[in-house]
């Protein structure tokens, strides 16, 4: 028996089942695809994804690393690119790009709507790391592109005891004008914990762990619009 502290310390299996399971653990929305493929005439769509689609402008739309293929089956205008090659094995009509810096070269064109919804691979960085990711994404955007970006506070490096996190993340989003992204809308939700009648607190996660409790919409080198709710 070997003792392991870090995930990449020992070789991992490369068989399909292992790769698929690892993908599934981090891509909860794949479940929607699994549900929907059983029904020819009906489909379930996540409320936040639908909100994104309602706010897209005419033109090309990409969901990157966000299980967007489940949406493509319903709304064929949606294009999808993923970071994990295992996706190609069950969904042919997707583009695989692991390296964000190469994304613009790999994609067939630039986009007018660009969504990254709680991409687990974007996490474990400071907000500066998120800026770097978004800088790479902007290379695949047309001017005026609407950018939908969301994540969880719990997976971003920040000293959670010395920082007002709401201010921290909002201030970061507002700073992205330096890479051409102007903040149009945001929804930052930390669970407001209050004791129940028995004096007990809930131990829930922050709201919407699937899509992320920190949601931002930007426009890339363009004008804001009236958000459709």
């Amino acid at each position, binding site marked *: *028996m*070997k*003792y*392991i*502290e*870090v*995930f990449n310390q*020992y070789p*991992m*299996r490369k068989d399909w089942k*292992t790769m698929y*399971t*690892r993908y599934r*653990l981090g891509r*909860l*929305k794949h*479940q*929607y695809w699994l549900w929907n493929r059983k*029904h020819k*005439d*009906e*489909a*379930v*769509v*996540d*409320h936040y994804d*639908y909100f994104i*689609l*309602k706010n*897209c402008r*005419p033109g090309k739309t990409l969901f990157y690393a966000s299980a967007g293929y489940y949406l493509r089956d319903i*709304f064929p205008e*949606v294009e999808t690119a993923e970071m994990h090659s295992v996706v190609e094995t069950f969904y042919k009509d997707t583009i695989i790009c692991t390296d964000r810096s190469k994304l613009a070269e790999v994609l067939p064109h630039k986009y007018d*709507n660009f969504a990254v919804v709680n991409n*687990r691979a974007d*996490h*474990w960085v400071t907000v500066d790391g998120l800026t770097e990711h978004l800088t790479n994404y902007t290379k695949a955007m047309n001017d005026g592109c609407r950018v939908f970006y969301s994540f969880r506070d*719990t*997976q971003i*490096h*920040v*000293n*959670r*005891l*010395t*920082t*007002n*996190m709401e201010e921290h993340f909002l201030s970061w989003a507002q700073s992205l004008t330096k890479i051409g992204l102007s903040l149009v809308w945001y929804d930052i939700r*930390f*669970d*407001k*914990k209050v*004791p129940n009648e028995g004096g007990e*607190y809930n*131990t829930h*996660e*922050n*709201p*919407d762990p*699937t899509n992320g409790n920190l949601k931002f919409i930007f426009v890339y080198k363009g004008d804001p619009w009236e958000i459709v709710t």
Partner: protein
Amino acid sequence: MDLNKTTKKVTLQGYTNLYKWAKVYNSLQMKFFTEPVKMRRVKQIEDFVLLNEFEKVKLVIDTDVLDNLKRTKTCVDSFSEADIVIITDQKFSRYPCPELINQIEKILVESKSLYLCLNRNYINIDNSYIDPTLSDNFCLAITQWLRKSLPDYSIVDMSLDYVEYGDYFTWAVPDRHYFITKK
């Protein structure tokens, strides 16, 4: 985008818990490896109990860990029966900061010692606590906050100091390990 173009009847899904693996998260991850592996953190806790001769153990866990302790020690139901309380349950880290301190004190009224594993990523989950006097090193800041909040208790930090990149099995056994007893 014209959302009416679809030929399917669309049902919107509000928040639903799509996560299904919490109860078997540890064993599921261990199966990814080409040879048998065991989480070092689990070994650390098991050896701590063995080498310090704790016999009656109260486990507060939320996934499939610490099986060795279940086999070799007497697992009791209440805090008051236990020589040591061991908490790896992620939910404990999701109390607001002041309530987390209250919970520790409550346990140590009943039991002599506590081995507490906290998930750093959940600390101050509700963003209601800010103490700018704490260290810039978040790992150290957590220890400082515990010591400041529990002055009548001895707190030994047995964690490693490292940057979390999501690859440390933290969601099976949390990363910050504290042995807490009354002074």
